């Protein structure tokens, strides 16, 4: 039913959307691999592969999930994920519809942890253009187990991050947020609709480590921020998000949803002018 509706919606969209899009969506996902380099003076890179060996920046510590969890992870994976991602996690499910789902080999533990921990995976509707955040079906330990197993197929980066927010500079974070994040997530962090039914989610309710994972792995249509942001800069952004965005200083009163001047206009017209007109109704006469 949903596919018929979305096909209907796609129909007129084809007039406006280039035909390349539908296929590039899947083409990109089957070849996805993390090849970024964090901007840190202590980073060590394997010169042959260009893959990071160690980060060295103390602002965020990255830890690979223990390999001993892999066996449990495989069992969980076969139970919850293989129906779409395939038993080899390569995006080819058993019914042979190859290439329709993302290839998870080599995406790195942080990617797995992000999607499972935010409840987006296992997907509620595998055919939806974007999975919604919801209450996670698998807990943190289970997410790590799955991440451990998938990582064991082809170890990659980034690992599970732990940001250390104590020395973060919230002002630098605000500036970086405004330049890099506000274009999609809005300056207030409420998120908004994007092209073709995708959307940038609200940032009001996500834990700090998930912010790091999203920034470093670029889930879905979100771009990946790798070498151009150091761990210190990412930590500053996380500090800003977990303080100002999630606990805004609405010193002026009710925040009106952070929707901007349109909301203010409605309040000004309906409550302001409307109330005053009603009061004018009392002050004046009815004849």
């Amino acid at each position: 039913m949903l596919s018929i509706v979305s096909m209907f919606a796609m129909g007129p969209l084809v007039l406006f959307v280039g035909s390349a899009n539908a296929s590039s969506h899947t083409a990109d996902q089957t070849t996805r691999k993390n090849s970024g380099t964090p901007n840190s003076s202590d980073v060590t890179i394997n010169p042959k592969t260009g893959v990071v060996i160690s980060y060295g920046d103390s602002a965020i510590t990255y830890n690979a999930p223990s390999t001993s969890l892999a066996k449990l992870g495989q069992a969980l994976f076969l139970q919850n994920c293989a129906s779409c991602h395939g038993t080899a996690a390569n995006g080819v499910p058993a019914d042979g519809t190859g290439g329709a789902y993302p290839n998870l080999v080599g995406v790195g533990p942080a990617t797995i942890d992000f999607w499972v921990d935010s409840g987006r995976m296992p997907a509620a509707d595998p055919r939806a253009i974007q999975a919604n955040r919801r209450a996670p079906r698998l807990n943190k330990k289970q997410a790590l187990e799955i991440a451990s197993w998938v990582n064991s197929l082809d170890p990659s980066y980034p690992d599970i991050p732990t940001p250390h927010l104590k020395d973060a500079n919230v002002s630098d974070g605000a500036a970086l947020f405004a330049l890099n994040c506000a274009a999609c997530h809005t300056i207030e962090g409420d998120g908004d609709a994007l092209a073709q039914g995708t959307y940038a989610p609200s940032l009001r309710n996500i834990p700090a480590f998930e912010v790091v994972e999203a920034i470093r792995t670029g889930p879905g249509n979100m771009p990946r921020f790798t070498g151009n942001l150091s761990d210190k800069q990412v930590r500053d952004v996380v500090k800003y998000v977990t303080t100002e965005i999630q606990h805004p200083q609405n010193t002026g009163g009710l925040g009106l949803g952070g929707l901007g001047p349109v909301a203010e206009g409605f309040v000004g017209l309906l409550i302001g002018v409307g109330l005053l007109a009603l009061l004018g109704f009392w002050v004046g006469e009815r004849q």
Partner: protein
Amino acid sequence: MSEHDDHGTPVSLKGLSANDPHLQPAARNPVLVERVIAVTFVLGIVLVVGFGACYWVNAAPWTLGATMGGGLFFLGVGLVAWGKYLMPKGPFVEERHVLANTDQDRDAFAAAIVERGGSVIKRRKMLGGLLGGGLGLFGVVALFPLLRSLGPLPKGTLFHTDWRSGTYAVDITGRRVQVGDLAVGSIVTVYPEGRQTSDRGQAVDQTVLVRISNENFVTQKGRETWGPHGYLAYSKLCTHLGCPVGLYEQELQLLVCPCHQSMFNVTNGAIPQFGPAPRPLPQLPLYVDASGYIRSQKDYDQPVGPGFWERS
């Protein structure tokens, strides 16, 4: 009709009895209404004084507004109620005078202008013409400082940016971008080296750098060398109204402008496929130098940003 004085009030009307119904309060129970109004006045006074107190102790901003607002509001309610319910209820009437004067006065007015003015102009046509011409020319010339002194001529300013052959692409901190920095699906805003905090660098030179593959990427014919190692650079100024096109959807490979949702396809030279933007985002030709830094081959091949008359 009785005689009226020249303001429309009948002179024979010496006065109105104080018992006249027109002068009575509108309220059925004026005493009760007076008490209610007194209460609102007291409430207003208390709140207004409360504003003073809140200010004195530097209380939260909302208390200042609540006390001031409530105080003014209740004082206002009381005053309106006084006028509406306790003051003479009327209704009263006044006559409208015809605004137009008598025909005699109108003729006199017209005669003054037409005959006197006409006699002057008829007899001194040339002088009148010269004066009119002079004042008209002054009006035109007076506009010159009001407009031209305000700012410089545009000349070629809108046609070029500061990107040149070999300019390093740097991010907002001034750090040069290296070929190994961005993963596929990554984005960074870049500026010509040295210009990242200047007005012009931000407003005109701003460029969005995305990496859409690990190999050279060709967006259009003639741009075979522009996308080294999969790096593509487009002007960040939307061709609609100049907003920064900072919204990048890596799977859909669209750059979306947040202002009015123009969508540009990064794989074919940022051709707009939806929304009000009329032209593709100009693409900046890049190359990677021997040390791995991303640099521009030359300036954009067309003016960046929204359209204007001189843009060919």
